[in-house]
């Protein structure tokens, strides 16, 4: 009896030993070297696996960063939008690289065609999918560029950062947004854009993507951009471009001066998180110096030498024009 047990122990033990030896040599032969830094980087990432960086998941991004650090010595073009600067700094520390700070971004809905601004002309009762409705027709309000309100962007968001406002029928982005860009690709009409978050979350953007001429655009929506070009003229920083009757504000050039917001006749330029403006009576004073700002109309040396006179003469001109107008009207009526 004892004998059998001993034989069994020796036989199985020997078998295990042989198998272990084979496995040891095979493991050595086919060993895949994996940089331990990959694990470290992955650990530092937010593990959202959202794909915002352009790679299929955080692991793939970690591999790419380690490879880039080895080959190129920089992390240029590799940006985890969810982690932001903090994560970029940690990753840089792990890989021993200097990382440049990037501006935090946020998704912005560039359509204000709410139920009151763009009232429905037809009723849609098909499948609740923007992609499907987009292939079918232009939309309940009639604008063929505007938001369809069927929430494809909400479905695409992994961060609970975008919700439909039931009153306006438009989506709204909250501060949970990580700028992963999932909603940007989900929107069949390219309404959502990633823009710079700005200091204290201040931002100015054209809340319209309608490329039609002014009249047909305004027929469907009272807050549509009509491409009048007033904002372009007033902008001193060359930040506004107008292509096919649609203004676009370049957020890399915009200094948040808010001049364009004032002049927009359809209120399609939005300012967000700004302090309320000063009351209206002070407006002429604000307007007068703006004419003299460099870039628009450069005052000659003589003129700029006598600023006091200029300021005095301006209001007079304004008064004159105001006084003249009623007289003209009376003449015409008679």
């Amino acid at each position: 009896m004892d004998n059998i047990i001993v034989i069994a122990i020796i036989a199985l033990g020997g078998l295990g030993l042989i198998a272990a030896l084979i496995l040891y040599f095979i493991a050595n032969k086919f060993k895949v070297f994996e940089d331990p830094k990959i694990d470290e980087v992955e650990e530092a990432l937010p593990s959202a696996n959202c794909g915002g960086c352009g790679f299929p998941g955080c692991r793939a991004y970690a591999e790419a960063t380690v490879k880039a650090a080895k080959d190129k010595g920089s992390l240029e073009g590799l940006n985890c939008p969810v982690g932001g600067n903090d994560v970029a700094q940690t990753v840089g520390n792990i890989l021993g690289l200097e990382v440049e700070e990037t501006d935090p971004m946020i998704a912005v809905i560039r359509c204000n065609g709410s139920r009151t601004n763009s009232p429905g002309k037809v009723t849609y009762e098909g499948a609740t999918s923007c992609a499907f409705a987009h292939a079918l027709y232009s939309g309940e309000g009639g604008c063929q560029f505007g938001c369809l309100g069927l929430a494809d962007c909400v479905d695409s968001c992994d961060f609970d950062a975008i919700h439909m406002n039931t009153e306006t029928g438009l989506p709204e982005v909250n501060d949970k947004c990580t700028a992963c860009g999932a909603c940007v690709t989900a929107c069949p009409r390219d309404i959502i854009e990633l823009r710079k978050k700005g200091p204290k979350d201040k931002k100015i953007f054209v809340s319209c993507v309608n490329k039609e001429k002014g009249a047909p655009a305004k027929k469907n929506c009272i807050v549509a951009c009509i491409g009048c070009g007033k904002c372009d003229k007033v902008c001193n920083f060359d930040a506004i471009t107008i292509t096919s009757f649609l203004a676009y504000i370049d957020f890399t050039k915009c200094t948040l001066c808010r001049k364009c917001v004032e002049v927009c006749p359809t209120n399609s330029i939005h300012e967000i998180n700004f302090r309320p403006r000063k009351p209206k009576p002070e407006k002429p004073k604000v307007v007068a110096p703006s004419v003299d700002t460099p870039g628009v109309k450069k005052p000659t040396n003589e003129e700029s030498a006598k600023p006091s006179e200029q300021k005095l003469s301006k209001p007079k001109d304004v008064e004159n024009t105001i006084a003249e107008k009623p007289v003209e009207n009376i003449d015409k009526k008679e």
Partner: protein
Amino acid sequence: MGILRTFVLGGIHPTENKISSNAPIETINVPEQAIVPLGQNLGAPSTPIVNKGDMVKVGQLLAEATGFISTNIHSPVSGKVLKIDNALDGSGYKRPAIIINVEGDEWAEGIDTSTDLVNEITLDSKEIIEKIKNAGIVGMGGAAFPTYVKLMPPPGKTAEFLIINGVECEPYLTADHRLMLEKGQEIIIGTRILMKALNVDKAFIGIENNKPDAINHMRELVRSQDDIEVQTLKVQYPQGGEKQLIKASVNREVPSGKLPIEVGCVVQNVGTAFAVYEAVQKNKPLIERVVTVTGKAVKKPSNFLTRIGTPISQLIDATAGLPSNTGKIIGGGPMMGKAISSVDIPIVKGSSGVLLMKKEESSRRVESPCIRCSKCTYVCPMGLEPFLLSQAGKLGNYELAENESIMDCIECGSCQYGCPAGIPLLDYLRLGKLKVGEIMRNRGKN
């Protein structure tokens, strides 16, 4: 009479409601302003060759074909070109169109406007195809596929049979039915022209047996001719689909993803045959078509011979006005048509009907969960699994959808028609087709 011919797989029999079948074709007045969209056919839109302010005559070339699958567009009216601008069309979007202010009704030279029958076919195959191409003829059944493309089989393939589609399986529509009754002789000559163009010896005209008068009339016309046979088909939707009609008519099956020419068949609509007759024998380009305007609440359901570019509102007015309880206006038939968002949309080459649905008819059923009754699979004429495919389309599993042949779906709507749970199967199927098609095209590019 033995068992009637039909296709074997799936199919449904919706209520026919052919209430306008006794209304003779009426010619409707030329509109005051014609809107002629540049993209009326499948494929690339045409390029305009007229400018703003030009005077045009009826039948004058307005826009030229660009690319292989594209057609010429002729002026349906005479007058002054007001502008070339974006206008709302059946797609639901504003697309480029030529807008003409009508002045008088002056026809271009060389068009025979008389109703005399021209029997003799003097042209040869190539000349016929050239003429059909120049006349801008497209499939009049609804898909608007350029006809001349179908008449030129790819190298290595030859056509054996021509099948003329007089099925008109869509409920409500009667345009083809009336055309067969009133223009039967022209359709037969058109069929002969198409046979000559394709170089085939045998043609079938398939008609469903809910149109006995049309069957008898067409039989009478081809009595002593062996090469054209009128076939009576059992009423079954969607028999008007190319693949279903080929199965019913000559008992051949078109392989998945292939064209009918693969099994030696070419299918043309009766409306197309009539347009071919007019183009080849009368030199008249495709500028008008028969449109059924119907609906249960419509006072005078009618079939109108109308110029392309006529706004739908004018057709509705001609039926004694829009019924007050209209809930939905559909361009096309109730099964495959599409609801339109404005009555200013013009009639195009592919418009076969305008259906005014009552409010209570038009509302969709409330969607409830699938009860796994498999009715959709049972009725699918292409042998697909509609519920599986629609879910794959809805949830974005495009790989599964492609493997399960979503691209074979002909969007007939049979699955959704019978679904006891009221699931919008076809919506998600279309969405899936859209996405899978996009993926396949991108794959082809890379």
